[in-house]
């Protein structure tokens, strides 16, 4: 089951701050996180998970969607926080980052948000946890939105996993 990626209402104040860019916003880790909207192809409901042996914690399993097997990425586990609970209603954003196609699990899907690139601020100087993967912080009428560098996050996740053949269970 998938949902159309419906635009959320933009903040009129961003129009005065310059041309808008579209981001796709998820709720996770108790906050609002977004990434470049063109990376997202659809929002899917997470089906029954098949857990993988010898998989890192950020890869809780795979599920099938329209006959395709999709890997689920848990950003919470990647950054050393609690796992995002998987329920019948849990949704994930299906994203393409370079060669990788992954489903990013969320606590809730907010959808598209329009932010002015000129209004984006640098991320906090912290280099631990999810802050390591932030590229900017924006703001709309619902509040602050942390912008994730999702391609870097996905590539870092892959690099942190033990590659096949070099480790043992």
């Amino acid at each position: 089951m998938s949902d159309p990626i419906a635009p959320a209402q933009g903040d009129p104040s961003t129009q005065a701050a310059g041309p808008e860019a579209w981001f796709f916003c998820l709720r996770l880790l108790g906050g609002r996180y977004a990434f470049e909207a063109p990376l997202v192809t659809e929002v899917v409901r997470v089906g029954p998970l098949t857990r993988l042996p010898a998989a890192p914690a950020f890869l809780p399993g795979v599920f099938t969607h329209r006959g395709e097997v999709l890997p689920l990425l848990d950003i919470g586990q990647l950054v050393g926080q609690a796992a995002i609970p998987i329920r019948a209603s849990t949704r994930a954003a299906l994203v393409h980052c370079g060669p990788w196609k992954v489903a990013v699990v969320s606590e809730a899907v907010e959808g598209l948000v329009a932010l002015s690139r000129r209004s984006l601020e640098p991320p906090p100087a912290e280099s631990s946890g999810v802050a390591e993967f932030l590229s900017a912080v924006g703001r709309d009428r619902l509040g602050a939105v942390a912008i994730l560098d999702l391609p870097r996050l996905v590539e870092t996740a892959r690099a942190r996993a033990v590659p096949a053949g070099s480790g043992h269970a």
Partner: protein
Amino acid sequence: MSAETAETTEILLFQVGARLFASVVHDAVRIGSVRDVPAGELVVGTALGMPFARERGIVVASHGDGAERTLVVDHVIGVRPVTEAELHPLPAFAAACLASGAVTGFVIVDEAPVLLVDLPTLVREHPGAAPQRAA
């Protein structure tokens, strides 16, 4: 393509712990009890997990050296044919993240995805695997 004309592959279904796994049937040389096999020659506790009962053994011919090793499992469910459409490769991201190269994909069994395992790779990855006898 009808079921009669679709090309099929035979898979072996087996259980380790509470989980069901599949392998290509040609990966298994034979199946038997593990009672007569010295404990040091058994492959127990692989990437698939630890078996509960340690009742059955799947004898696997290792790639390269041709030695046989016995993978300990809980139950061997049986052999069944599957069509090409029921076989799915592991997603690229998952394949790149797994510590084991033995999981190669999935086979859909009764509408549920079951992990497809390359048995020779699995026993080769096991650090304690000792050769039983040369082929």
